[in-house]
């Protein structure tokens, strides 16, 4: 069977499963819609969190990025996993004990202030929309490459699927489809990785094959260091970014991860505080399966790619190169007219420009794996994109129906009314996200730094200090959030939009790139919050009581019932 037939079959089966789950798990109350009734088992929540978290970017782009960055790719690997330690130790148990439905709920209540709540809602909406545009685009790209449908049609099909289970099922539907999506995406990621590891190093476990040796007896990584050096690239296992930038980007991604509302809200869905703790552990374990495999895939793919193209005559290139050149993801030009591919670091002489995404998408073809494995990658990419999109949609809809409508504009709205509003908001958000996917603003990649920077410099300090420092008051927290956001946003906007020409290391503050500046924004937020809190009146007694209550697990059942 052809790749396309296989893709139709596998994608069709996976979509049928998602819709079946959606129908089985319809939400009947706002509590089911926002937090799946608070009755999800920790293991299932761990899987759902992993699928929620791992987006089209993790699945399709990350391994490719790492294969071009070498050691420096560690910023993504550590940055997007280390945040779960912070989540598990510093946020998840306390937010679960607090109960309620959303992150702005916590901020609004702990800082007894509508201003704080509104600042949090605006941040949550901004971060989520930034993210979701990229997901819908990812859906469209997978459809167009593997099924040869138009990108726009691909986005519309993706929208329709998400619409069904997000609008009908809310968090309940989303949670159980995410469990299925995790299984699809991890199987799709690991299968080719295992095959390739076995082919290249004789070890079926990619994490070990990564440090194993090739058939000629040299270690894979030594071979790759040598190949990179020959072609004029930096050694694969040594970085080229300055240490301070690596440090700050990693920290901004970690802290940003722990501050992303669609991740935090998953810990509201388990029954008890102890379940929130352990489900963060399961989530990271499931994420680590992909995140420790990705750097191995990156090294395998780069070695394979260099060996099969560098110095090879254009008319003797393997068929996958031609296939992907047709889609525009590989660009080739015989600049010096010698008939052979000259792949080198110097961009003036280089004749071969692969897109980072093909490292995962074309990997099975490069390794000559059977067609069903190639099709599996398409189903996995779709699962990754759809699951993340759904989680974000829920944050957007609850921010509108719960935080704005119920808590700020119309407190006397009925349960039924709020549920209808939540569904309408989810539906509208799907359509808007789809439009962003069909007509992508040119700056999607740029704004991802934004999403993490903002989450790091706003939510994370406000929540941490809210739990660990009783003295933190409304004035401190609001000024801290505003200072953190203004600084981080200002820095990113200046270098990415106002004056992109100046975006070079020489102009950066202390050599920290816009991707890493969220770390400084977070520290600034903490300093301002702590300082102003201590200069102004202590928070009221009932807030101190609330904090003491959050700190002990017992009684979470009570908190859950309101």
């Amino acid at each position: 069977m052809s790749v396309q037939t296989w893709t139709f079959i596998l994608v069709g089966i996976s979509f049928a499963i998602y819709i079946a789950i959606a129908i089985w798990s319809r939400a009947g109350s706002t509590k089911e819609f926002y937090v799946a009734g608070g009755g999800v088992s920790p293991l299932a929540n761990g899987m759902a969190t992993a699928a929620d978290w791992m987006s089209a970017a993790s699945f399709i782009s990350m391994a490719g990025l790492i294969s071009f960055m070498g050691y420096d790719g560690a910023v993504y690997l550590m940055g997007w996993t280390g945040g779960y330690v912070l989540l598990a130790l510093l946020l998840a148990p306390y937010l679960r004990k607090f109960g309620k439905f959303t992150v702005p709920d916590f901020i609004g209540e702990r800082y007894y202030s509508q201003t704080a709540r509104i600042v949090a809602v605006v941040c949550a909406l901004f971060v989520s929309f930034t993210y979701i545009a990229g997901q819908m685009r990812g859906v469209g790209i997978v459809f167009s490459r593997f099924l040869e449908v138009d990108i726009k049609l691909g986005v519309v099909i993706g929208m329709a699927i998400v619409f069904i289970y997000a609008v009908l099922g809310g968090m309940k539907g989303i949670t159980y489809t995410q469990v299925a999506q995790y299984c699809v995406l991890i199987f799709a990621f690991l299968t080719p990785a295992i095959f390739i590891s076995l082919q290249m190093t004789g070890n079926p476990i990619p994490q070990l094959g990564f440090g194993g040796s090739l058939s000629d007896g040299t270690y894979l990584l030594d071979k790759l260091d040598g190949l990179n050096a020959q072609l004029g690239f930096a050694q694969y296992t040594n970085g080229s970014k300055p240490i301070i930038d690596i440090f700050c980007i990693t920290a901004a991604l970690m802290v940003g991860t722990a501050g992303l509302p669609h991740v935090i809200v998953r810990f509201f869905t388990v029954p008890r505080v102890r379940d929130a703790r352990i489900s963060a552990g399961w989530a990271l374990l499931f994420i680590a399966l992909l995140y420790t495999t990705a750097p191995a895939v990156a090294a395998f793919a780069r070695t394979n790619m260099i060996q099969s193209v560098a110095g090879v005559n254009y008319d003797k290139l393997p068929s996958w190169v031609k296939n992907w050149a047709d889609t525009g993801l590989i660009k080739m030009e015989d600049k010096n007219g010698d008939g052979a591919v000259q792949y080198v670091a110097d961009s003036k002489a280089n004749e071969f420009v692969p897109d980072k995404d093909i490292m995962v998408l074309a990997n099975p073809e490069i390794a000559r794996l059977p067609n069903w494995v190639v099709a599996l990658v398409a189903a996995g990419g779709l699962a990754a994109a759809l699951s993340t999109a759904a989680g974000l949609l829920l944050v957007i809809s609850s921010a509108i129906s719960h935080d704005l409508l119920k808590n700020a504009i119309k407190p006397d709205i009925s349960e039924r009314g709020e549920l209808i509003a939540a569904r309408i908001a989810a539906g509208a958000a799907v359509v808007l996200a789809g439009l962003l996917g069909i007509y992508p603003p040119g700056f999607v990649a740029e704004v991802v730094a934004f999403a993490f920077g903002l989450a790091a410099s706003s939510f994370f300090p406000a929540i941490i200090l809210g739990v660990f420092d009783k003295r933190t008051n409304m004035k401190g927290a609001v000024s801290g959030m505003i200072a953190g956001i203004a600084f981080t946003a200002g820095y990113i906007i200046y270098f990415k939009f106002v004056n992109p020409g100046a975006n070079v290391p020489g102009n950066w503050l202390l050599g920290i790139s816009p991707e890493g500046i969220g770390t400084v924004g977070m520290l600034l937020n903490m300093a301002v919050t702590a300082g102003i809190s201590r200069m102004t009146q202590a928070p009221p007694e009932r807030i101190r009581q609330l904090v003491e209550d959050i700190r002990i697990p017992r009684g979470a059942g009570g908190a859950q019932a309101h």
Partner: protein
Amino acid sequence: MSKTKLQAYWKENLRYLLILLLIWFAVSYGAGILFADALNSVRLGGFKLGFWFAQQGSIYVFVILIFVYVWLMNKLDEKYDVHEK
């Protein structure tokens, strides 16, 4: 629960957090970033050690840290009788 008991519970919790977060920092920012170059002179099979911590080891340690935290806290909750029924 009495005020002093709550304070004692919280203090022990903070001590666990401090130790676990020190390890978290040491494997990622320490071994994986600040001292990666120095550690790269040590080999772990086909890996240079600093590179291994940055792209593999730190992630394994993160997973272990959370499960250790869960185990410690479940014990602590029982000790102070604040666990959930």
